[in-house]
């Protein structure tokens, strides 16, 4: 009847006597897997190119003289495959390989971390023999060797499947590990002098030789996860648990806006490790080392577990009961409402908690003075009246979910501006790289220099001096050309806000070229906070505060008194800080914000000192809690349920991994609101989700009320003699609040260097590695120089890395003019001498 014509790209074959249809080019091992036939394997990995190295997956194919590796054999019409289930030849071949894999394996499963979840152990059970016939001595190696501060290698356990080296080369582009030596002495190792002139064993500490290069990849943890034996282990987890004692909970990563699915393994209330979750639409099966290992902040010794209030008599913070602290917070905020309360919720919130802050600000505090952005909003010197980014977020980001990872991978061309994907959104980086390597995606980067990360994307550089981005986006023909093909994407980072006119130019360029536009912030909660209304110009759901109809609809839904929702956009982060510093605002309600991340940390701390009343909702002691009048402890991500919204706008919901009495921000805010006779209804994520779901639809006309900004493109500053324009962005692993205290992870951070071009190096008489001092009137940063192909008179510094705290030390943002001197500044030496 419905005789569906057989697709020409399909073939029919039989596996173990069962007829099966497969896509042309599909591997035999994959077809068998679909049928439920598990062929043992080690080197095979669905996301890596076939290797055929371990030979464990041998099967018999009719007409072939020898058994074939099913992980490299593609299907063919009429092929007759016999696996170990139906072929004695295949079964014997597999048993033979397994026996040989085990002769040099130490069989130290009782002390090996992998024991219990080890493909070698499992498949030795299914395919191996009970007793070994091997009577000789096993190969031995010095063990373990640290191939980075984080990753350890026990070479004698290795079966040389090359999954780790293939991942590093094919997926991450970090070929720091490779096969060394040959024959039974073949081993995985990092590049070391030992192999090229030393005694050639690869033993000893990495770093003994001048040419030693450790495994400093941001993605190194994935090699541990895909290692089919216990050869690669992580410093944090080694010898700490048995897999069968662990409870595994699905989770979502809280570190950046990439939105990785994760698996958190815990035991008796303690997280032991985190693994990349499997989500083909987002992170595939990978994550970055920050996401994998950056979880110790939640158990740091300075975790706050009890509310604190400032004692009226002593002026010191003291522990208090929840009721006392909540009452103090409510009273203090109530008293300040008439003068105004600024709300700085920070960018690490779940959508639910962000919504609670947004609703709390509007319904309890009666203010639009709320801004999640804990970073520079504009270039140093740009008047606060310019609200370019907030306008851009309202018009082009809130409620928009147009660009996905899949589109990135399959786009013909992507233009990046104000975004360094490897440092600021590592999984987006991996997807861009996949597109580049496998699908000829062309990447064009508007950036001061071609970083190693951009090189790995094969990116074409459109060099832009910081501050010039808007001009480049508006006028550069290479950028326009790169967006000419249908399906091209323009992906901008949050840093583009620091280039005057940058976001306006990006929006205009997208409109002009027809390219879809995506905005990639750095923090996990940033995007959700936009949509939840944690902005001075936006209510939840992307409703402009200026839209009377939207306010009315929301008032109705919130059962708020008429007139509670103001129609005037509130203060943004910079203005809230300014308002607190000059005494305009009566109180601040601050979430997870580190003043050091703000445009001017000194001013921010002055504001926190000056504001009459300060409420802090925090996990750990911070610069904010130390200054607060009331400190209310809240739950870290692992102890609460919630949802992050990734840069795509995709929701990443998770349940609490650990049972805890710690409360969410929303629950705490609800309690404060209750004391002020407002029912916030944000105490429970399910209640919030229900409420979010029941909010009236935000009809598109409302959003049309927000128009993209049209700030004129500025030009970069003109530095004078011995001056340069500052370029800066964050390293992935830096001094961020969620990473401090973890020395092992910090060991894999990129070294802090000051990058400058040949012109500056020559005029200052600097060679690579010489110290250079970058200074402003505020202070200075002294780092080794790294001569880089930068535009003339540009210097680059890591924003917040050891020895380079740009905002605190220099008090400026990208695009500012800074002074350069060779060597260490005399004044600091003089101070030190005093």
């Amino acid at each position, binding site marked *: 009847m419905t005789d569906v014509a057989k697709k020409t790209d399909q073939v029919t074959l039989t596996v173990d006597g069962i007829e099966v249809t497969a896509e042309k080019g599909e591997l035999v091992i994959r077809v068998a897997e679909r049928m439920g036939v598990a062929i043992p394997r080690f080197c095979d990995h669905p996301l890596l190119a*076939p*290797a*055929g*190295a*371990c*030979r*464990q997956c*041998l099967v018999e194919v009719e007409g072939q*003289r*020898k*058994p074939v590796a099913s992980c*490299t054999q593609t299907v063919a019409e009429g092929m007759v495959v016999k696996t170990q289930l139906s072929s004695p030849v295949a079964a*014997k*071949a597999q048993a*033979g*390989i397994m*026996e*040989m*894999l085990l*002769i*040099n394996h130490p069989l130290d499963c009782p002390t090996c971390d992998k024991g219990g979840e080890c493909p070698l152990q499992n498949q030795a059970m299914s395919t191996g023999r009970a007793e070994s*016939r*091997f*009577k*000789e*001595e*096993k*190969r*031995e190696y010095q063990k373990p060797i640290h191939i980075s501060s984080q990753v350890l290698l026990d070479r004698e356990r290795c*079966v*040389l499947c090359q999954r780790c080296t293939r991942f590093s080369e094919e997926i991450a582009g970090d070929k720091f590990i*490779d*096969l060394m*030596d*040959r*024959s*039974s*002495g*073949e081993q995985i190792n990092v590049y070391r002098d030992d192999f090229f002139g030393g005694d050639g064993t690869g033993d000893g500490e990495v770093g003994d030789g001048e040419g030693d290069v450790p495994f400093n990849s941001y993605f190194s943890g994935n090699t541990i996860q895909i290692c089919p034996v216990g050869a690669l282990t992580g410093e944090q987890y080694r010898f700490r648990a048995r897999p069968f004692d662990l409870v595994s909970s699905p989770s979502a990563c809280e570190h950046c806006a990439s939105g990785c699915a994760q698996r958190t393994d815990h035991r008796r209330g303690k997280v032991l490790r985190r693994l990349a979750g499997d989500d083909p639409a987002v992170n595939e099966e990978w994550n970055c080392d920050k996401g994998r290992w950056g979880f110790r902040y939640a158990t740091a010794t300075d975790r706050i577990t009890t509310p604190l209030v400032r004692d009226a008599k002593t002026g010191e913070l003291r522990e208090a009961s929840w009721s006392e602290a909540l009452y103090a917070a409510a009273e203090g905020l109530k008293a300040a409402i008439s003068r105004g309360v600024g709300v700085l919720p920070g960018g690490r919130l779940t959508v639910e908690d962000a919504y609670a802050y947004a609703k709390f600000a509007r319904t309890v505090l009666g203010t639009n003075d709320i801004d999640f952005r804990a970073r520079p909003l504009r270039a140093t010197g740009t008047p606060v009246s310019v609200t370019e980014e907030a306008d851009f977020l309202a018009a082009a980001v809130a409620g928009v979910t147009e660009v996905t990872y899949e589109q990135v991978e399959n786009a013909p061309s992507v233009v990046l501006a104000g975004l360094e994907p490897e440092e600021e959104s590592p999984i987006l980086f991996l997807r861009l790289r996949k597109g580049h390597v496998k699908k000829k995606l062309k990447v064009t980067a508007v950036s001061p220099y071609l970083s190693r990360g951009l090189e790995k994307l094969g990116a074409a550089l459109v060099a832009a001096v910081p501050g010039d981005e808007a001009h480049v986006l508006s006028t550069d023909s290479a950028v326009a050309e790169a967006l000419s093909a249908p399906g091209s994407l323009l992906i901008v980072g949050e840093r583009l806000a620091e280039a005057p006119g940058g976001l306006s130019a990006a929006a205009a360029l997208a409109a002009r070229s027809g390219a879809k536009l995506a905005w990639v912030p750095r923090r996990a909660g940033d995007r959700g906070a936009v949509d939840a209304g944690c902005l001075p110009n936006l209510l939840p759901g992307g409703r402009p505060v200026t839209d009377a109809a939207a306010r009315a609809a929301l008032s109705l839904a919130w059962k708020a008194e008429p007139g509670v929702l103001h129609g005037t956009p509130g203060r943004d982060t910079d203005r809230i800080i300014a308002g607190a510093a000059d005494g305009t605002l009566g109180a601040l309600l601050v979430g997870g914000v580190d003043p050091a991340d703000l445009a001017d940390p000194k001013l921010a701390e002055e504001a926190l000192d000056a504001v009459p009343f300060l409420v802090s909702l925090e996990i750990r002691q911070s610069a904010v809690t130390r200054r607060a009048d009331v400190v209310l402890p809240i739950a870290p991500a692992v102890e609460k349920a919630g949802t992050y919204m990734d840069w795509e706008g995709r929701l990443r919901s998770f349940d609490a991994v650990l049972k805890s009495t710690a409360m969410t921000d929303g629950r705490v805010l609800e309690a404060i609101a209750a004391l002020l006779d407002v029912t916030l209804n944000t105490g429970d994520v399910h209640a919030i989700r229900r409420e979010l779901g029941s909010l009236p639809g935000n009809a598109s006309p409302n959003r049309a009320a927000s128009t993209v900004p049209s700030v004129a493109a500025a030009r970069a500053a003109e530095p004078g003699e011995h001056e340069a324009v500052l370029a800066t962005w964050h390293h992935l692993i830096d001094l961020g609040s969620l990473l401090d205290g973890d020395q092992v992870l910090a060991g894999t951070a990129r070294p802090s260097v000051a990058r400058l071009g040949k012109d500056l190096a020559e005029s200052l008489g600097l060679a690579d590695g010489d110290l250079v001092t970058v200074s402003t009137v505020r202070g200075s940063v002294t780092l080794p120089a790294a001569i880089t192909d930068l535009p003339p008179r540009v210097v680059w510094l890591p924003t917040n890395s050891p020895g380079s705290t740009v905002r605190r030390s220099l008090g400026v943002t990208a695009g500012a003019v800074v002074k350069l001197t060779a060597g260490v500044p005399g004044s600091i030496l003089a101070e030190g001498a005093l």
Partner: protein
Amino acid sequence: MTQPRPEVLQKLTPVLTKRWLSPDAWQIGVYERLDGYLALRKALDVHPDDLIQLIKDSGLRGRGGAGFPTGLKWGFIPQGDGKPHYLVINADEGEPGTCKDLPLMTYDPHSLVEGAIIASYAIRANRAFIYIRGEAVHAARRLRHAVQEAYAKGFLGKNILGSGFDLDLVVHSGAGAYICGEETALLDSLEGFRGQPRLRPPFPAIAGLYASPTVVNNVGTIASVPYIVLGGADWWKSMGTEKSAGPMIYSLSGRVVNPGQYECGLGITLRELIELAGGMQPGHELKFWTPGGSSTPILTAEHIDTPMDFEGVAAAGSILGTTAMQIFSDQDCPVYNTWRWLEFYHHESCGKCTPCREGNYWMVRTYRRILAGQGTVADLDTLQDTADNIFGRSFCGLGDGAATPVVSTLKWFRDDYLGYIEGRTAPRLSEKSLVGAH
């Protein structure tokens, strides 16, 4: 020493070896006086496709061991594909017992250069490489000298002899890895990577050197080309047998009076070759021998009349290989010899695949134990089984080569093994050699 009988002497067909004894034949002037570079002139006058057809018609089969028809291989190169084509000559001769290419390149390097130019012209390659074994320093020196001379004479470079055909020929020395004689490992090594065999498909004819269509041929194969061009396919086929046409350099080593290279038509027998080599050494009686290097199953005295062509040797259960015939006598021990070969294969395994890397590690140690008088009968079954688990299971042919002498000596000479195990034969290795043997 006995003189070979005239009818056996007549079986010598010096073609590729004909200049070896001429003084200074490695110099271009001498080479040219001895018919050198005549074939090149002739070849450049005909269409490349006709050259490929000529080689097909001649029945030339690869001299590197596998005996693949050369004309067919050249025909696989897609023409008009817009991609660069490459000719890569495998001069990484390293198989134990094999010694035909190195003397050829030492004494008559121009024949290889001339063959390379003609072959490149046929497959439309403008760049050719000779990948020569790193240890073969003298041969490489002669070869580089020959290439320089050929450039100076206009046989290499731009517009060769006014034909409009350009060719650059590069002599590349390897770094001492047997595995780089495997053609895909050779290509990886040539590209600057670690020498390990590649996954096939794609085959080199489609994606070889730098992912472009590439012909990889043995030295002997390419050096045969000028003679076929000059003499014609019918002349070439007048030597050898119907399916194994042409002359072949047989390298005899071991217990014969005059070891060396004897070029005869394919199909000659070992009995005749031994006669050409002056007979067995006095007091030695043939016990076992390799027909084509240590990777080919050994044969015994009973195979002395086997025709030494591709089909004849296959029928006897072995492989013609590189016609490197190592002759062992009743004073040689097959167990000891197998161990020596295994040490070689173990040392030269690239380590990529499990059976070759681990299996050789295991077998070498078992042999050491047997030769030290500590073997057991069960070891023989384990050896046999391990060799079976390596053969046909490894990524490339190296593993097969290692398993082969084990299987074939166990088949023919099990009693020699039992001699060590049962204490009838004095141990050849001391127990000391086992200490720390890993």
